[in-house]
């Protein structure tokens, strides 16, 4: 980020930087560091925190009950992410590719509409879909009946095995717009002359897509994946809106975010513990950091090199 002519730093520079850096440090950076610190403390019954080293982590990872919860949430989160990767991003790629073709009538209208769900509140989406999928109302059943699949319908949101995938698909439905837009922007950034050159050389549109367009947008696809990863492992709102903090049925929709919320605040019979919550947050941080680290160190560099 260097310009060819940068001025010497003077006190105006500091004034410009101060508000942003101050707020960011106090309310974002420092709390994160403090959480890491807090995770090394434990609270006793009286509510006092004392230094406890890695005992919180030991509990989380080795205590049977805790580990069951943590492992369950982690596994669910992974499943959540995998579904997004396999469903959301390919759909986004397909939609973006179709939108970027020349001469598609109504492309602007499509683009506008397809981006809409991203703007809606999670509460709205969660509840709307809950209504639609509700066996009581029967709308979903009726719609499936149009394509002859009504026997396939079931109380998906209420069944243990299907609850999480259903929630994941609802989340995909909501967020397809963002990767779609990012991929679309990358596709239209490809100079038209390159596509023309390939056409003149005899490539079919299908061939052009696989041999020219896709390789050139690989960095964007990588970015989309890592943003999905971070977003998924931070997810909370949709689950809370539809299932509440208990993430039922029987914790089958419990993600790290909801587990964190319960640990931190307490819920029903469970007492909240700031230090335990901090420890969980630290683990989440490490997971996310791990994923981001892997992306930046290995994948991103290779993608950049390949695409230029």
């Amino acid at each position, binding site marked *: 980020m260097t310009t060819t002519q940068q001025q010497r730093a003077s006190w105006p520079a500091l004034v410009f930087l101060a508000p942003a850096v101050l707020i960011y440090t106090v309310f974002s950076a420092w709390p994160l560091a403090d959480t890491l610190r807090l995770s090394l403390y434990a609270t006793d019954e009286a509510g006092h925190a004392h230094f406890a080293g890695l005992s919180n982590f030991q509990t989380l990872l080795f205590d049977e009950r805790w580990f069951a919860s943590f492992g369950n949430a982690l596994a669910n989160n992974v499943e959540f992410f995998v579904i997004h990767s396999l469903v959301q991003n390919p759909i986004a790629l397909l939609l973006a590719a179709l939108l970027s073709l020349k001469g598609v009538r109504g492309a602007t209208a499509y683009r506008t509409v397809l981006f809409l769900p991203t703007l809606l509140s999670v509460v709205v989406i969660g509840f709307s879909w809950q209504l639609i999928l509700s066996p009581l109302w029967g709308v979903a059943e009726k719609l499936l009946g149009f394509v002859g699949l009504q026997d396939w319908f079931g109380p998906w949101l209420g069944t243990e095995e299907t609850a999480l995938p259903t929630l994941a698909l609802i989340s995909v439905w909501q967020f397809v717009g963002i990767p779609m837009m990012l991929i679309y922007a990358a596709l239209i950034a490809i100079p038209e002359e*390159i596509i*023309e*050159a390939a056409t*003149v*050389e*005899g*490539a079919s549109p299908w061939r052009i897509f696989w041999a020219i367009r896709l390789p*050139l947008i690989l960095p964007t696809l990588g970015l989309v994946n890592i943003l999905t990863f971070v977003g998924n492992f931070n997810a909370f709102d949709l689950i809370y809106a539809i299932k509440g903090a208990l993430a039922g049925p029987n914790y089958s929709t419990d993600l790290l975010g909801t587990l964190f919320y319960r640990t931190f605040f307490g819920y029903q019979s469970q007492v909240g513990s700031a230090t335990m919550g901090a420890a969980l947050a630290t683990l989440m941080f490490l997971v996310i950091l791990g994923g981001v680290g892997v992306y930046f160190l290995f994948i991103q560099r290779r993608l950049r090199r390949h695409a230029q």
Partner: protein
Amino acid sequence: MTRVTLANVSKTYGATTVLQGVNLQIDSGEFVVLVGPSGCGKTTLLRMMCGLEEITGGELRIGEEVVNHLPPAQRGIAMVFQSYALYPHMNVFDNMAFGLKLHGADKAERQRRIEKAARALHIEHLMERKPRELSGGQRQRVAIGRAIVREPRLFLFDEPLSNLDASLRVKTRVELARLHRDLGATMVYVTHDQVEAMTLGDKIVVMHEGCVQQAGAPLDLYQQPANRFVASFIGSPQINLLPAKITATSPVVQLELPFGQPARATVEATTKLLEGQAVEIGVRPEHLRLAAAGEPPPAEGIRLDAEVVLVEQLGESHLVHLRAYDHHELVVRGNAHTRLRAGDRVVAWAPAEALHVFITDGRACRRLFPEGVADTPQ
């Protein structure tokens, strides 16, 4: 060997006509240059020949086939784009192999053709590099190489030199001419630079506002421009134009300049020339001579008293900007350097054979002695 024929080709976008009534015959192995100012339609015409734009009217034949509805890949053409359009994520070898792979050439064949082209273009050492690691000139060679390996029956070039700096442009121009000679291929080349057109083309097609103004050999366009536009477009500095009136049409065409001076031009007196008609006289800067005021000039076609306004010394030549009769501005080009200075009074003259005459609609009268003017040193 392929000839290309355009019969009454036109192009409209909705209500706007961009090209009309283009008739062109390109012989096998010819190097044809489409030249003209921005917006004249030359690039559109090239893209129509390529297949990237639809042909609204008329017929395009490559060889004996009518190819109006064939996609680019089936026309047997290759195109070199202005920005080279190399595939950024492939190295040079793969860039050149892409088209061959699509056409089913096997590995050995691809290797053979690419090596041959690389040797011809001196890019063998660049095979592993990506486009972003190449200089502009190198990228252009790769783009040309990509076209060569396809062994097309027609090469199309869209202003390939315009992104190069001046010295590289001259050098590459020479190499393109040599490439054409070696390959013997039919080539169509678009440029807005008339110097490129004159030096490269076997045949030049000057276009303006969607119409072909004139098509012919470079020297023909220079000596016998079909109209005022072509005369102004070809030749640098631009031809000098003066309004005049026909006073007689035999034995030679005689005219009168607005300030009363008589003039004679050895052009064909067609039925279009009537006494009293308003026309324009054209004389190129390199055909005007300067004599000191008061000296009688040797042979007369036109003779003007003028004052020197500005002298530009270019080293190998010089340009003298004159103002004649307080009103008309002329440019005279001479060799080496001159001692003239601003403010000097001179007489600018040219022999009758050097003059062009253009009637009101811009069309030129045929010159009877197109070559009859020699450049003599001042």
